[in-house]
């Protein structure tokens, strides 16, 4: 027995050790990851971020150096009070800030560098640099920030910001403190613009000193510079659109129908992209983010999903022709509305009769289109089947679904089909008379401005479109094929001519006859859409949205656009004028309709937007007053500045 004590102790100790080692080294241990090894310092070498140019080669976004003052608390030499005051003055901080920042850095780590004062301006840096030697433990780290060469296109260009933890978890490429595209092309072309950062692995000792490259640098990589990109935006047109949109809310999307390139993408209100660069970034971003009424960060051109109103009538005209339920010359007599028996399903404004297709489009007759729409749906015995046929035609124009393009945000819109109403009313418990609002672009149909612009481009092309996109050229690369392959609508080419003629006549003798531009054949369609909000949970109607779609010239069109102005009342009142001006600007380069321009620049809708939040009763549409602003004189020089 006595012999066994020692021998069993030895074996027991051996077993306990092996079990513990198994636990430490095998069981409780994930695979070795060099990025989690504290003994290896990872030194990143950031490449130049790619520049962004507009379609005419104008530089929009470049880079600028920024200087962060860093601190390693352990190495800070004791400073006397005078020296600290001098340092604070150089950094433009208070003594209290100094103490707090130093304390925070020490708490984080006495040995590791922490940012002390981030993003100094070039001027502050120049002054500080000479005296930096005096302040041991502090040093300046250079970083590259974006430099916007323009004040426009904030929503198009986007911005870059520091990655957050959820991004780091999903994409291990990014490390804390890295920058990533946040919105706009900075986001969608992040991988192209950022390049690939280089990395050096350095063996450290326990005092955080570098010893040597890890494994002689065999894993080190060089940075790959980001590629420059050219976007399809025309900076001058974009700037002009933003000028027109001042003091209004809404969106403009202009597309080159022959390529699908987005020429301008305006949202109002917007902001200066430079506001989101440098020391004030987070302050300004917070301000923009929390403006939940004007929503400057909300890209209305891409996201504002509303009833399209009358522009949608042209789709019904096209479907009607394609389905063969009407002929161009069929007439309908509108009696200030559409009557089903003695019941008035929809109203209409005053215009002469009888109404054929051309007259229906140019006068925007509601009754005519309800008539057409019902014929389409009722062509089939089952309204559900009719509705599905109708929806498929409408969807072939890129409506009711994501465009699947290279913009950072977007919405589906809505094109209802048979199933939609079966769910809403019950199977087969509805008919064409239930849903006549779709005929005039109200009701359940919803679109975004970019979808409307694309729809207009498809009409301009007489039956096909290219997916609207913003990338024109990537340095040393080609753009995806999906942007260069046409997508065909379900409508035959010959059916477009009468509809295009109708849109042309909108300018000739229709709802936009006052907006003609000499020398340019513009085709357009006005829209006026009712809209409601809830004020203290009471559904309240606001002044109608002003909507306009147009393309020009009539033959070989160069530009197709959709404009939507919140609470602008009827279509030609705000949106129509702006559309005309945009087209003239793009095609002629200068403005002859200066009367329209000055009207737009001197009229504001700010008072209209204040109404729902005033807490007082207010009047809409006819009862609302136009607000004239007197900063026309101030605004105009800016127009000439727009040469950029």
């Amino acid at each position, binding site marked *: 027995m006595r012999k066994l*004590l*020692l021998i069993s102790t030895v074996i027991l100790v051996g077993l306990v050790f092996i079990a513990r080692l198994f636990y430490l080294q095998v069981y409780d241990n994930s695979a070795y990851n060099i990025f989690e090894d504290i003994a290896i310092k990872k030194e990143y070498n950031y490449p130049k971020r790619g520049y962004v140019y507009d379609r005419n080669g104008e530089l929009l976004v470049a880079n600028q150096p920024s200087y962060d003052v860093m601190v390693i608390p352990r190495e800070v030499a004791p400073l006397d009070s005078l020296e600290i005051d001098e340092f604070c003055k150089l950094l433009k901080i208070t003594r209290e800030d100094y103490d707090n920042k130093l304390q925070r850095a020490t708490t984080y780590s006495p040995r590791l560098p922490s940012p002390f004062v981030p993003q100094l301006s070039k001027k502050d840096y120049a002054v500080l640099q000479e005296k930096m030697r005096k302040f041991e433990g502090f040093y300046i780290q250079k970083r590259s920030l974006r430099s916007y060469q323009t004040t426009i296109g904030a929503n198009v260009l986007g911005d870059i910001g520091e990655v957050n933890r959820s991004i780091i978890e999903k994409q291990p490429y990014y490390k804390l403190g890295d920058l990533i595209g946040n919105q706009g092309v900075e986001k969608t072309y992040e991988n192209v613009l950022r390049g690939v950062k280089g990395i050096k692995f350095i063996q450290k000792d326990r005092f955080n000193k570098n010893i040597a490259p890890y494994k002689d640098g065999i894993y080190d990589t060089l940075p790959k510079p980001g590629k420059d990109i050219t976007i399809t935006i025309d900076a001058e047109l974009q700037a002009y659109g933003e000028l027109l949109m001042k003091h209004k809310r809404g969106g403009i999307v202009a597309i080159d129908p022959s390529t699908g390139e987005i020429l301008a993408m305006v949202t109002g209100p917007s902001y200066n992209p430079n506001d989101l660069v440098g020391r004030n970034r987070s302050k300004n971003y917070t301000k923009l983010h929390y403006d939940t009424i004007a929503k400057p960060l909300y890209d209305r051109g891409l996201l504002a999903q509303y009833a399209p109103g009358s522009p949608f009538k042209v789709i019904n005209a096209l479907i009607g022709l394609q389905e063969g339920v009407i002929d161009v010359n069929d007439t309908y007599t509108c009696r200030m509305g559409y009557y089903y028996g003695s019941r008035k399903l929809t109203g209409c404004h005053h215009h002469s009769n009888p109404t054929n297709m051309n007259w229906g489009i140019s006068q925007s007759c509601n009754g005519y289109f309800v008539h057409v729409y019902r014929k389409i749906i009722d062509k089939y015995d089952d309204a559900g089947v009719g509705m599905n046929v109708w929806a498929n035609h409408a969807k072939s124009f890129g409506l009711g679904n994501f465009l699947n393009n290279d913009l950072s945000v977007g919405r589906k819109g809505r094109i209802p089909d048979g199933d939609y109403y079966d769910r809403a009313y019950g199977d087969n418990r509805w008919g064409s008379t239930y849903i006549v609002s779709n005929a005039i672009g109200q009701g359940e149909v919803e679109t975004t401005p970019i979808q409307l612009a694309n729809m207009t481009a498809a009409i301009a092309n007489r039956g096909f479109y290219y997916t609207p996109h913003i990338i024109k050229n990537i340095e040393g690369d080609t753009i995806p094929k999906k942007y260069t392959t046409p997508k065909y609508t379900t409508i035959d080419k010959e059916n477009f001519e009468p509809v295009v003629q109708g849109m042309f006549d909108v300018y000739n003798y229709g709802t936009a006859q006052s907006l003609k531009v000499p020398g340019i054949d513009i085709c357009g369609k006005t829209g006026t859409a009712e809209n409601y909000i809830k004020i203290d949970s009471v559904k309240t109607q606001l002044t109608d949205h002003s909507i306009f779609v147009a393309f020009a010239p009539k033959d070989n069109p160069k530009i197709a656009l959709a404009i939507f102005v919140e609470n602008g009342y009827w279509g030609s009142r705000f949106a129509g004028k702006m559309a005309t001006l945009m087209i003239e600007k793009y095609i002629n380069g200068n403005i002859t309709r200066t009367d329209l321009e000055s009207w737009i620049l001197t009229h504001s809708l700010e008072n209209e937007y204040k109404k729902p939040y005033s807490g007082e009763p207010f009047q809409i549409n006819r009862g609302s007053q136009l607000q004239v602003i007197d900063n026309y004189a101030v605004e105009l020089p800016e127009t000439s500045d727009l040469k950029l």
Partner: protein
Amino acid sequence: MLRANQRHFKFDWITIILFLLLVGFGFLNILSASHIGEITSYFDTDQLYGKHMMFIGLTFVLIVLILSVEAKFYEQFASVIYLVAMLTLVGLFIFGKEVNGARSWYGIGSMTIQPSEFAKFATALAVARYMSDLQTNMQTIKDQISVVAIIFTPALLILLQNDAGSTIVYLSFFFVFYREGLQQVYLTIAISLIILAVVGLKFGVLITAIIAAIIIFTSYFLRKRKRGSLIKHIAILVACVVFSYGVKLFYEHALQPHQQNRISLWLRLEKDPTKLERMKKVEAYNLIQSEHAISSGGLTGKGFLQGTRTTGKFVPEQHTDYIFSTVGEEWGFMGTSFVVLLFVMLIVRILYLAEAQKSQFSRVYGYGVASILLVHFTINIGMVMGLIPTVGIPLPFFSYGGSGLWGFTILLFIFVKLDSNKINEW
């Protein structure tokens, strides 16, 4: 010729191979843990591994010397060797050099020698000599006191030189005493005292008293044949309480702060988070770094000379007491379990050989060797993995250092020599 051959082969080659494997593998790890910059030559004596290589070279000279001396010499001169060893320990008080707060070194030129490493084999020899005396009877109090005196003399001297870790090693001789007939009751008492001390510190005296009372009285009342009176049991209980209170007092007042903190960390006694944080940065720094290094090795390790924490010298004292963490990082679980197996096999082999000895002297000495190795192995590897509180003693044959390597080599090879001589004793 034939005689010479026989001589060669009567040594226990299994022990020698295990020894060589440990020393060789130890050198590779010292190389990894101590090299600074490029390794130009394994014999570069400017670097620690080069010095260790030199120590290993001298070790073989020592081995030849030890094996060529007559086996009888060790038995006959045991007392003299012990006496010399004790004198060198005493001499430290006058001529000693203080390193890291412990006055345990003699400085000879640029070299330092730690006599406590040599006192181990001397004590083992003395214990073996005394116990193998025909007149010695371990059952008697007188002889028990005598052997305890033999081991407590060096233990006390070393403790006074502020090297608490090495003191603990001398307790390993109780394994030997037990093997040679020390009463069962001492073992029971020893185990009870360890449990009392740990439970007392961890849960407080009151809870310890309650638990002890439950155990003692249950055993008293459940036993059919009552052994000893109730009063005797109560006395045991009182002794337990007094002991555990004494341990508490000792822990709080007699221990040095760093020793206190090591125990506190091990038993997780500190509840104040800021103090705990500070302790983790100071007292537990080595331990945490060493555990990280070991676990980062995974199953197969990062490869020889590829350990990032080893290269970065993240574990202080890695080439000496914390050498096992290098094995863990660079050779992984494969390497660490290999080392553990080598030690277990070596100790088991020594015990096996000891049991086969005809002379009591050789057997007791063999047991002494096994016990000393076991305590070093257990404490050192247990410590670097955080299983027991930090006690600074080296890993035999593995850790950097001439004194340590030579001390253990002499300890082991005297036994190899004694073992080889067993045929002559027929």
